[in-house]
Structures are given as C-alpha cells and as structure tokens.
C-alpha cells in the first residue's frame, strides 16, 4: 500500500473544482454533439457530490442550499449543461430531504442514494400542460400495495441516463388537476419510450428528450405529502436559487473571458485606454447585482425555512419568482456585453474568448418555466399581497 504524498483537499469547494476541471475539458464536445456529460457526472459520483444534501444521519453530508449553490456556480463556469444536471438532481434531492423524512421508504432511499450515488431526474412537464407544474393530466393508479403511472413527459433532462425519476401526477383517477402527488421510480421500475429529440440552441448536454414514461412500483414510493406542499416549500425555492447559481456561473465566466481580452489589449496599448474597458466595468456592475440578487434570495429561503407559514406565504413566492426573473434576464445582458467586448474573438468558436456556448446556454433560462408564466403568477399575487418596503426586513 502506498500513501499519497500529500493529503487531497476534501473541502466541498475543492471537490467541486476537481469536477469542474473535468467538465471544462469536455464542455465544447458535449455541446457540439449534444451528448450527456458522462465524464463530469462520473467525476461528481467519484467526488461523492450527489448525496451531499442528505442529512448525515441518512448517509449524506447535510450540505445547505447555499453550499450547493456554490457548487452549481463553480460547475456553471466550466460547463453549464453539467452544472444544470447537478442542480436539477439536487432540486429533486431537496424534496426528499425536506419531505421524505417521515416515510421509512424515503429514508431508506436517501441512504441508498448516497451509498450508490444515484442520479435523480424529474418529470413534471407534461404534454398538454407545458410548464404549469402545479397541474397534471395523468393520474397515478393505486392497486393494493402497488402504484402504476403512465405520463407523456415531454421534457426529462438526462432521462435516459438517470438512475431514478421523480414523477408528478394527479393523486388518483378522480382527482382535480391541482390535486397532485410525486412518486419516486427506480430504473428497474419504469420504461421510457422516446418521443421527442433534444436538438436545441443551448443546454444541449442536458439531453432533455421527451418520453412516454410507464412505471410500476410499491405505493410506499409515493411522497407522503401533497405535491402542492412540496412545490411551495422546497421545489420553488431550490429550483430558482440553484438554477440562478448555475446561470451566475455562466455569466461570471463570460465576464472573466472579457476581462482577459481587455487585459491582453491593455498590455499592447502602450498606456492608452483599451477599447471595451468601460463596457467591462458595466458588466462587472451587473454581475455584482446578479450575485446580490441570488445571495439575498438564499438568505430569504434560509430564514423562511425556520417558519412554515412564511415558506407558504405569497411574499416568499414573489421573492423567489423575482430572483429567477432577474437572474434569467440579467445574464443575457452581461454575456452580450462580454461578446461585444471580445468582438469577433468572442463570436468565433474555439478561441480563449469564445462566448457562443455561454450565450446559447443562457437563452434557456427565460424558458425554463417561462418567465411570462412566472410574471403572470406574481402579478396575480400582487393583487392582494402587501409588499415589505423596509431595507433589512
């Protein structure tokens, strides 16, 4: 047995950066070929990142949402598709951690997830419903101890590569569209028949194909809480915060590239101000705004977690919606600024300043639950909600 010459840095940040290195190496190929970022996901498993959010008592590390958001940002700077796969997995795990603790099956599953580093995908979007995740057409059928479900799932990111899929549906055949449950299905408990190919502008490596999902599993795998509560208390916040952390990573890398471009120009400019430097200052300003927006959202969520009433309040939903709206729009402005700074070197593929992939990936942000839909929800709430106008409250 040989001892390593020096101890490996096992902090979360160091583990994330090692994964990011692998992700960055493959990012362009993953994008060009629209293929699953297998190397990066293998590295996540090797660094045991898939179970970090699970409490220590169930085999995980009890990482907080801010800590996970930081990992999303580190990965987002390397390969947005890999980062988004990680973020979407962690959003599903947050439902387990927040709502699965009372159920023996879900507790055991958390242990298995950590031990085997299982990758979890999500099927909320449905043909005929779109991104209105609080409505389902399909209904789960419960037959004694067994449940069965068929869903026309039009978008399941890494569906073909996941070990587990969590699927929303109506709670029973007579349930109204909003009376939903979510069920955990393991790979040997479902079949996927591909219906739509994911050949898209960006986020190509998420491989978010459409499938007809057919599953059969023990009924104990249905979450013991209504999906309405899961959506409001863990999914809304974790989605908007972790997605935003990925998007921030994309924008931050774009600004880094623009800054490198300006610095190289400055060295050759013989003391003259290089072009693009004022735009760089503007981009840096917007990047700070974006970061502040996400950080304040993380704090609002951490505070609300201590108070269930606050978690299901309108003020909280509006705050989370606003984080998503602002970050999805601001990244496009920032990356576009970076593109103008780098000029043709940014527009071209394969230069150190290339920004095409960043810009294409970033365009998914506004559609990932359509901003128009979110604006619609917020505007309805604003008809009755009274805003808190204080600075610190």
């Amino acid at each position, binding site marked *: 047995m040989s001892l390593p010459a020096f101890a490996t840095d096992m902090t979360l940040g160091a583990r994330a950066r090692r994964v990011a290195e692998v992700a960055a190496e493959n990012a362009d190929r993953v994008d060009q070929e629209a293929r699953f970022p297998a190397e990066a996901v293998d590295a996540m498993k090797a660094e045991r990142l898939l179970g970090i959010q699970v409490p220590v008592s169930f085999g995980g590390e009890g990482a907080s949402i801010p800590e996970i958001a930081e990992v999303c940002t580190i990965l987002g700077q390397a390969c947005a598709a890999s980062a988004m796969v990680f973020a979407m997995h962690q959003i599903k795990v947050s439902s387990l951690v927040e709502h699965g603790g009372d159920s023996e099956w879900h507790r055991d599953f958390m242990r298995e997830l950590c031990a085997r580093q299982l990758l979890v995908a999500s099927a909320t979007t449905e043909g005929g419903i779109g991104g209105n995740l609080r409505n389902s057409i399909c209904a789960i059928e419960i037959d004694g101890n067994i449940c069965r479900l068929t869903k026309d799932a039009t978008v399941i990111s890494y569906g073909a590569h996941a070990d587990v899929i969590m699927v929303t549906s109506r*709670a029973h055949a007579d349930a109204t569209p909003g009376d939903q449950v979510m069920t955990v299905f393991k790979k040997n408990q479902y079949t996927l028949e591909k219906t739509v190919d994911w050949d898209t502008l960006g986020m190509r490596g998420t491989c978010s194909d459409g499938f007809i999902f057919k599953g059969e599993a023990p009924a104990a795998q249905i979450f013991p809480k209504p999906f*309405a509560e899961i959506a409001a208390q863990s999914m809304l916040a974790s989605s908007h915060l972790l997605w935003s952390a990925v998007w921030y990573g994309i924008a931050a890398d774009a600004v880094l590239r623009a800054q490198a471009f300006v610095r190289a120009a400055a060295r050759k400019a013989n003391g003259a101000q290089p072009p693009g430097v004022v735009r760089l200052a503007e981009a840096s300003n917007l990047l700070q705004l974006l970061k502040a927006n996400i950080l304040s959202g993380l704090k609002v969520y951490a505070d609300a977690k201590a108070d269930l*009433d606050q978690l*299901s309040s*309108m*003020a909280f939903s509006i705050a989370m919606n606003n984080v998503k709206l602002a970050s999805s729009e601001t990244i496009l402005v920032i990356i576009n600024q970076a593109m103008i700074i780098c000029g043709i070197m940014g527009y071209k593929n394969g230069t150190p300043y290339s920004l095409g992939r960043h810009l294409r990936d970033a365009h998914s942000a506004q559609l990932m639950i359509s901003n128009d839909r979110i604006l619609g929800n917020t505007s309805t*709430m604003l008809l009755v909600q*009274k805003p808190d106008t204080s600075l610190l409250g």
Partner: protein
Amino acid sequence: MNETIRELLARVGGLPVAVTELEDAADLYAAGLSSFASVQLMLAIEEAFDIEFPDSLLNRKSFASISAIEQTVAQILKAREAA
C-alpha cells in the same frame, strides 16, 4: 359569515363541484381551487367584509377550507375591534 363565504366561493372559486356539497372542513385545493381563483376569492372577501388581509395571513393555510377562511376573517375583524 359562512354563507357569504360560500356565496363568494361559488361566484369566483371556479370549482368543478357545487359549493353546497362541500363540508366546511373540506380541502378547497383538493376540490380544485386554483391559485388564481384563490386570489379572486381573497379580493372578493376583502370587498365583502371591508377588510385587508395582512401579509402574515396570505398563505395556503388561511384559505385551505371554508372554516379556515372563517377563522382568518374572524381573526382580522377581532383585531380591528380591539384596535
């Protein structure tokens, strides 16, 4: 108050079932109350009782059933009397 709430629920709730068939404790969300309709209901109740829901009561729980709404409204009316 129960009757007024039921009347408003029938008018703006958009439920697929008749309001007369709902128990006071029945879960309105499971009965099909959408978030849009729940806001319409809040507005109608504010108008009918001449009250404003404070932010702390604007959550799913306060509007989860007819009796929950009654309690929420009663709480606001009582606070107003005390003031």
